[in-house]
């Protein structure tokens, strides 16, 4: 058997995905995420040394007296920890959705935000706030429905095989249209609260409710697990749908499963944390660059990488100009938009 150096950075020696390479990549990413989570927990207007966090966490768990002051305790456990959990959940959800859309649509430019799917989720969430605020979980559920409908429409509009930019164009049209609808809705309801929500939909994790957090974390766990079971089929779909069918993939079923799962993930993420862009674009791309295109690794690696990206962006957002806060979505867009342009130029070559 041939053993040669591969062009990927990790897992030298094999030109295909081995269990070893997958484990290395996942472990490194998990360690990085853990490290950044601890750092993010200690950083902020009220600085708490990382060394104090673990005793505080343990005392919280077993119910003994905390080594932290009351203010510190509130800041760490009621404000920062939920926000960090939210950043991780939202980032993972958006990145996994992006990886799923990219493989399904055979398009490295696909991303929930770029495709207008996030816009659909945003419109769904706002509709829920205006018309169905009494129903519990109406926001994530309407967000999911909005995302699913937007995906369907964009898919129909931009299905053309030969040009990846075509789909993106359809997504841009979708996004602008949906933004206008959202603006019109908020203008007509004349509600100050709703205007704040519109701002929040640009991507802000500071006001996430516990209800939304739980929904996001469950959606991520379930959604990522479902997509991982489809990852081998997605490897084939990524090459061509007709081929995948001939090679034993139930393409119609995979399409529906991935479409619905990616919409669910987007709906959950956007209804909780706003339309944070480009996470689903940048993260899977970096995962592929580091470890190859096999979705069995790209999907879990994107989940952790996406969590990392949003966590870092959100930490920057709340500390860079403290005490003023920046929208998290602005930070991810600053990173993501240039990557998008790079990928677009590359795909046109």
């Amino acid at each position: 058997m041939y053993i040669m150096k591969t062009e990927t950075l990790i897992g030298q020696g094999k030109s295909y995905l081995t269990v070893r390479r997958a484990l290395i990549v996942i472990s490194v990413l998990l360690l990085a995420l853990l490290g950044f989570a601890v750092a993010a927990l200690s950083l902020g207007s009220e600085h708490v040394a990382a060394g104090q966090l673990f005793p505080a966490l343990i005392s919280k768990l077993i119910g003994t007296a905390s080594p932290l002051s009351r203010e510190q305790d509130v800041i760490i456990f009621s404000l920062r920890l939920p926000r960090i959990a939210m950043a991780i959940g939202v980032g993972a959800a958006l990145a996994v959705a992006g990886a799923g859309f990219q493989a399904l649509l055979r398009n490295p430019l696909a991303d929930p935000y770029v495709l207008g799917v996030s816009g659909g989720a945003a419109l769904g969430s706002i509709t829920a706030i205006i018309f169905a605020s009494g129903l519990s979980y109406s926001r994530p559920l309407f967000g999911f429905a909005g995302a699913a409908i937007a995906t369907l429409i964009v898919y129909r509009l931009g299905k053309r095989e030969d040009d990846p930019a075509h789909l993106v164009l359809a997504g841009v049209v979708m996004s602008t249209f949906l933004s206008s609808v959202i603006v019109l809705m908020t203008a007509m309801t004349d509600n100050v609260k709703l205007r704040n929500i519109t701002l929040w939909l640009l991507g802000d994790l500071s006001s996430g409710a516990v209800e939304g957090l739980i929904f996001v974390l469950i959606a991520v766990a379930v959604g990522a697990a479902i997509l991982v079971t489809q990852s081998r089929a997605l490897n084939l779909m990524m090459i061509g749908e007709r081929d995948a069918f001939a090679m034993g993939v139930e393409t119609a079923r995979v399409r529906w499963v991935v479409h619905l799962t990616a919409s669910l993930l987007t709906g959950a993420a956007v209804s909780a944390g706003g339309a944070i862009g480009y996470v689903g674009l940048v993260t899977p791309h970096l995962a592929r660059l580091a470890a190859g295109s096999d979705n069995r690794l790209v999907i879990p690696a994107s989940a952790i990488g996406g969590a990392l990206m949003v966590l870092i962006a959100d930490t920057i957002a709340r500390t860079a100009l403290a005490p003023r806060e920046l929208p998290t979505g602005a930070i991810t867009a600053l990173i993501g938009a240039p990557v998008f342009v790079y990928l677009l130029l590359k795909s046109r070559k």
Partner: protein
Amino acid sequence: MLQLRDIHFSYPNQRPRETISGVTLDVRAGEMVALLGPNGSGKSTLLSIAIGALKPDSGDVLFDDEPIAGFSRREIAQRMAMVAEQGAIRFPMTALEYVLTGRYAYSTAFGFDSPRDVEIAMQSLGAADAAQFAHRRFNQLSSGERQRVTLARSLAQQPRLLLLDEPTANADIAHQLSLLDLVRGLTRERGLGVMIVTHEINLAAEFADRMALIKDGRLVACGATREVMTAETLSELFETPLFVDHHPLSGSPVVWWMRTGSRIEDRG
């Protein structure tokens, strides 16, 4: 092995016009059948029906006397493989990764490729004379090299029947010949059945055992290459004057054409 029995098919948006009208065709083990006909005659549609991608309006597709309608996608993929021209892939992938996707029909829902899968993939690359490309990026290969890797992927499915849809389109004559030589070798060594759709009449005449000529969805002629390939039949099939000669070495029929509108007296 593969039997198409009185297949009728029409695309939903083109009804009532039938794309395939009453085609009956067999492919036996170890045999290469070439499907020829003008553009739009229904050749590729027939391949799609054979592999179950399109359901015929009436008629049966049988594999070893069992209707394929009763098989799962995986069961079909373990029996038949399709080779078509493969363009660039939008994601970076090595040739070996590409060939390993051919093992899907034998895999569990997810999980990793077993050493056996890798071994079969490497053997398939070897059989397609493409082992040297295993560790290269698929997109960096030339179209002729891609064809061999694509053939390797279909062999990794360990099929008994290969369906080739214009596999040599865009390849130079050397690549066309080497690919068909490879496929012909596989029919002999492994008893693989082959159905090939092609526009290369002369290559088909050289390599195929039998020829099926199709026009407007109907089977015009089907039989041993030398019997089917007459000037009259081919001229009628393609609606252009054609002549049949013989290859100086192999003796296979060779088709000659005439410039449209040219007259004998022009040559002085």
